């Protein structure tokens, strides 16, 4: 019973929290830059406004352009039902492992890239091309760094990895774990289109990646894409937090543990997002063709992490 509640509750929680998290990051940024900021509810107000506006399809585009935003949001919701965020005891956690989760993330990225190509504009193609080139390097890194962690748990199930981490804190500071943490952090930044890989606030042709892809979206299509992107950020930050700081996650199927898990998750997310926002104030965006070097570096770190987990096992 509680397993099903968690499987259904986590997506709802992530959906509710994700725009607030974006608002929180913008607020932190604004305060550090000496501005007042719009308050953490602003992304939700934007979404409400967008949902009411009419969606516009560019001439010449097909059904894929319309289908991509719901597909993207569906993958985010499905991932939220599977991964251990507030609790490891989701009813669906046993049906899909980390490889499936990474595959679903990539499925969402690919759907959006296809939609961007379907617009038939140079912007769409440019964004799709850049996003896929980055994804081609990021996804293997995500996969490899979580593999390194799966070695200690003896399973690729994310719940098993987090549970094993919570039970054996000393393993969290192993070389494999630290290398994987570094690689995963870079991969998360790239996957969610944050600095220094992409600037979510830019609309400059030379630099934009994600924004170029979704340039043609308007109205409720754009609302879905924005919501799904925020959810992906929340999911990946939550996963990063739970893989390396697994304390507080409910590993037993009780209501009390789940409630504590939700509170701790919100705390971890606020902390990580705050650090990320503060980092973005200090960092400049990398030149587009320096990004692969960063990603190749993180891929090598992840490979080292896997090797370390085998050699030092």
């Amino acid at each position: 019973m509680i397993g099903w509640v968690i499987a259904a509750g986590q997506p709802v929680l992530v959906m509710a929290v994700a725009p607030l998290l974006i608002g929180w990051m913008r607020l932190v940024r604004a305060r550090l830059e000496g501005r007042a900021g719009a308050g953490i509810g602003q992304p939700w107000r934007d979404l409400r406004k967008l949902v009411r506006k009419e969606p516009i399809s560019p001439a010449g585009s097909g059904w894929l352009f319309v289908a991509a935003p719901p597909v993207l949001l569906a993958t985010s919701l499905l991932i939220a039902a599977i991964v251990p965020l507030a609790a490891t005891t989701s009813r669906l956690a046993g049906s899909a492992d980390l490889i499936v989760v990474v595959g679903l993330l990539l499925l969402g990225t690919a759907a959006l890239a296809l939609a961007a190509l379907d617009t038939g504009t140079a912007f769409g193609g440019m964004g799709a091309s850049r996003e896929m080139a980055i994804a081609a390097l990021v996804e293997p890194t995500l996969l490899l760094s979580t593999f390194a962690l799966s070695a200690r748990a003896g399973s690729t199930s994310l719940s098993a990895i987090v549970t094993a981490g919570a039970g054996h804190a000393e393993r969290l500071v192993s070389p494999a774990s630290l290398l994987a943490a570094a690689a995963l952090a870079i991969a998360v930044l790239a996957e969610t289109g944050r600095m220094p890989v992409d600037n979510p606030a830019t609309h400059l042709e030379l630099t934009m990646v994600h924004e170029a892809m979704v340039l043609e979206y308007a109205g409720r299509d754009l609302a879905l894409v924005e919501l799904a992107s925020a959810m992906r950020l929340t999911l990946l930050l939550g996963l990063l937090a739970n893989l390396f700081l697994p304390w507080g996650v409910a590993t037993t199927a009780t209501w009390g543990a789940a409630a504590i898990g939700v509170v701790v998750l919100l705390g971890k997310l606020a902390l990580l997002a705050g650090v990320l926002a503060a980092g973005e104030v200090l960092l400049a965006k990398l030149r587009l063709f320096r990004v692969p070097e960063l990603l190749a570096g993180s891929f090598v770190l992840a490979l080292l992490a896997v090797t370390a987990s085998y050699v030092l096992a």
Partner: protein
Amino acid sequence: MNLVVTGLGAAVSVSGVAAVAAVVLPPRWRPGVVGAGMTLAGCAGAVAGGWALAGRTGHAVLPALLPLGTARIDVDALSGWFLLLVGAVAALVGVYTAGYVGRSGTGASSRTALAALPLFVAAMLVVPAAGSVSTLLAAWELMALCSLLLVVAEHAHAGRRGAAVRAAGVWYAAMTQAGFVVILLGLVWLAAACGGESFAALRDAAATVPGTVRSGVFVLTAAGFAAKAGMVPLHPWLPRAHAEAPGHVSALMSAAMVSLGAYGIVRVGFDLLGGGPSWWWVLLASGGAVSALYGILQAAVAVDLKKLLAFSTAENTGLILLAIGAGGLFADVGQPALAALAVAAGLLHALNHAAFKTLLFFAAGSVVHATGSRDLDTLGGLSRRMPLTTAAFGVAALCAAALPPGNGFVSEWLLAQSLIHALPPASTLNAIAAPVAVGVVALTAGIGVVTYVKALGTGFLARPRGARAAGAREAGPVMVIAMALAAAGCVLLAVAPGLTTPGLARTVTIAMGAPARGLAGGTAGLALPGVAAVYAPMLIVAGLVVLGVGVAVVVRLVGRPRRRAIAWGCGNGPQSERTEYTATSFAEPLERIFDDVLRPEHDVDVTHYAESAYIVERVRFRRRVPDRVEAHLYGPVRAAADRAGRAARVLAAGSVHHYLAYGLVALLIVLVAGVIR
């Protein structure tokens, strides 16, 4: 006589009848009759294979069929797996052929090309069923000859197209015959050392054969079979032959024939030789890994749709060989259950690859049929003009990109599981090889997604980039039915992979002598109970469909109706098709990242006006990504062969006296050699 042998016999007989019919019937009837014959033969072969997978065996001895020895048919579950694969592909291609080749009586619908098709199918069905060295070699050679005829079916095309077909034919003929020779040497060597040529005799005696002979046999046969599988660096024939052959032939070769290379390695390496030292398998797995990475990189930057699919075949066979190599390595270091799991992943990937590659080549063939072009840079806009073909390509691309819930994901998931669970490592070699293999699989999967997003996004979506794509019409009903059937096969394998597990378990037990560790099937998905790994595709599909449709419906209910408008052109009005991103530009970032591996060639040619050097009249830009392996490895060999040929002209002076003298000298050498011995 049981159903296995009967089915196989029926398949071969029907193929023979269809081949004769292709020769005697008028052009109007040929495609339909040959297609029906292939479908019947394929179904019969698949039934025989399915029966063998259910645990039956079939034996037949035909004493007078081959001039050099007795033809033996010996079908077990391992044969059955590949009989099912080849039979199913052949049945689908039969349907497609009837709609694809046309009734002109030339090119792909000529007598020779159509008569060779059923013979090719029959040969491919006999290869996995063969029970002796001579039978295998005879069927292998028949398969090579028929496929060569089919590759050059359109050699009479005028201009560059015809020249490219002929060049592909020469490459394929040279590589496939060289491959045949090394397989022949390897198997004959083994037969001589064992004192018998039936597989049963080889199996019994192989353990007593000295190690050097075993290693020699393995290296020779593996090289020959890997060349057929298109493993880098033995691959140059593959992108040429698959690109230049007609669509139905590409599908048969890429989906079915290439898999038989993997069959050969499993049969000889595991079943006949009974496994071997680690270095055999490390060699094979490294070849597979290089093949997977190089193949997918070349596919990612290819602009020719069929060449892209061909390089993707090199990638997929690379993954299959990587899995088989990992299996051999695990078996050698004493992890038989894990080894069985790795080989099971490889065999399942062979089946999955056959399913989606058949569909991909069907869709590509239908695009070529409709537009006459394979160049992704001039295609586009087909999703409105050819919606069914686009949907078929979309399903296949999802599977080929190894994204969930496609079927390619299932076998790559299984392969990754077998590599991850090599813990604790049984040897230092394992501790190094397994993580590197995991990295290769991950990177291949990542670049694979780019490749298929490019193929689908620039080839089929957006607006047409050329006049031919703008005038495209949907494929005929017969081709659409073939594509729908192949798509149904892909979907079945994707959502119910558990259906394959009983047969897969028997197959692996034949090859490895041990069942795969805890591989449990069922209608819901795949599970590895020992390591708490589960993949439930039904749930993923159901979740995605319910959530996606739910989201779309909810936002539609609260929102306003959709409107169409021109795309944003920076205030410059509607943009022409020329501003769209092309396949070349899409792959440019990746090409730049892997610059050191691919070494693309860029050529900028600026012409100025005669009046002033500052005003540009014309800029010509050319870009090519040459196959470096081919240029550096085969270039010198070709040059040396050429030089040797020219030098040898001195011997052929045209004088009869010289030739008689050569004969005499040769005879003397033979006699002297005989005396000395």
